[in-house]
């Protein structure tokens, strides 16, 4: 039944070509919640690369901030059907992080892991060449805890659930494994332009 006078969300014509199929434009920044906001003190925060690497490497918050950072502006699409255009971030690209470890030739996938127990899987080939960042600023301000601060993964070309909030590290693995949402019906890959929402899409 169509609800008389309910038009739901919008796909304005001016930006139609920037909205993946089935997505609607938002101008605010909706909070996606799966649990309470973790508040790890910065002096106990670390970021770790582990799994199929020569030897694991960890950064403290201070040493992480000293890594070369990069500003980037991207459109983001959430599987809950909103797309936000031109979001402005600052962070460290995964390419930069990888200069500090030797990744084993057998590594094919990455499992990102976060405070609060969240995980999500991304193919290694889609984490490199400027495709993925560990971001700690949004809109020129420190990234708010509610949006994943102090630091979150940002993989803008995939649905936003892949951009793990409160991220604490990447584990390199040789096979694909489902993360938190992928293990419950969500797509292993999650390309918004192919509308890969659910497993089987």
């Amino acid at each position, binding site marked *: 039944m169509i609800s008389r*006078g*309910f038009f*739901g969300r919008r796909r304005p014509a001016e930006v139609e070509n920037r909205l993946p199929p089935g997505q609607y434009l938002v101008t605010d920044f909706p909070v996606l919640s799966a649990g309470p906001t973790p508040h790890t003190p910065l002096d106990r925060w670390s970021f770790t690369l582990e799994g199929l690497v020569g030897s694991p490497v960890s950064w403290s918050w201070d040493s992480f901030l000293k890594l070369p950072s990069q500003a980037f502006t991207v459109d983001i699409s959430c599987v809950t059907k909103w797309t936000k255009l031109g979001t402005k971030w600052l962070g460290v690209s995964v390419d930069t992080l990888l200069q500090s470890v030797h990744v084993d030739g057998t590594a094919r996938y990455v499992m990102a892991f976060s405070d609060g127990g969240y995980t999500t899987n991304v193919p290694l080939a889609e984490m490199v060449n400027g495709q993925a960042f560990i971001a700690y600023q949004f809109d020129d301000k420190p990234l708010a805890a509610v949006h994943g601060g102090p630091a979150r993964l940002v993989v803008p070309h995939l649905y936003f659930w892949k951009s793990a909030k409160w991220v604490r590290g990447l584990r390199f693995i040789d096979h694909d494994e489902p993360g938190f949402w992928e293990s419950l019906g969500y797509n292993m890959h999650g390309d918004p332009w192919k509308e890969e929402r659910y497993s089987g899409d």
Partner: protein
Amino acid sequence: MQPALEWQVGEVTRVRTETPRTKTLTLALPKWMAHRPGQHYDVSLTAPDGYRTERSYSAASEPERAGEVDLTVERIDDGEVSPYLDDVLMPGDQLEVRGPIGGYFVWDVSLGGPLLLIGGGSGVVPLMAMLRHRAAQKAPIPARLLYSSRSAQEVIYRTEFERLADGDGELEVVFTFTRHAPPGWTGYQRRIDPAMLDEVMQSLGNGVRSYVCGPTLLVEAVSNALVAMGLPAGRVRTERFGPTGT
């Protein structure tokens, strides 16, 4: 066996303005079932392009009123669903709902009292269903309602509360205003706090059943306070409405 929970199309038969931001919709339901006071309905809206969204609204009416149910909806200005329900729906319109739902936040006279109801903003809606039911059953169960609003203008069901409490020695309705109190107001003018809860509860005696409903942050504060005051956690029932106004 309960009948299966199905979506059904109700018809809006009446729209009443309660406050500048709140309206009550009366829905006639083809598959009406008596609710237990405190239960809610899920409302589903569908746009012409197939986009669908759902929200929950508590039954405001007493189950003794057969065939129809009242939903009282506070308009959240930047919300997706409540502005539609309050500003677009008219008598004669159809609305897709399922319910009544949820056996956790319910009270009826068979559970007895004493009853402590604490509501903030639209959180008073399911509590009103309990009080209307209590009145319909003429049950002399001691009951207190502590109701927090921003201002007197935002009090939902004001005249009905006065009528219910008038001539009912067992019911007391206590207001607190968090932003603007009416001129000459001598009652509470602050957010609900432990001292206020203590005063309101004093005359209720032991074995209180409490129901706390409203914006999540209010429910969080009040239910923690009640448990800290010694109420068993199992006797503090909560219904968090999410980020609605305080």
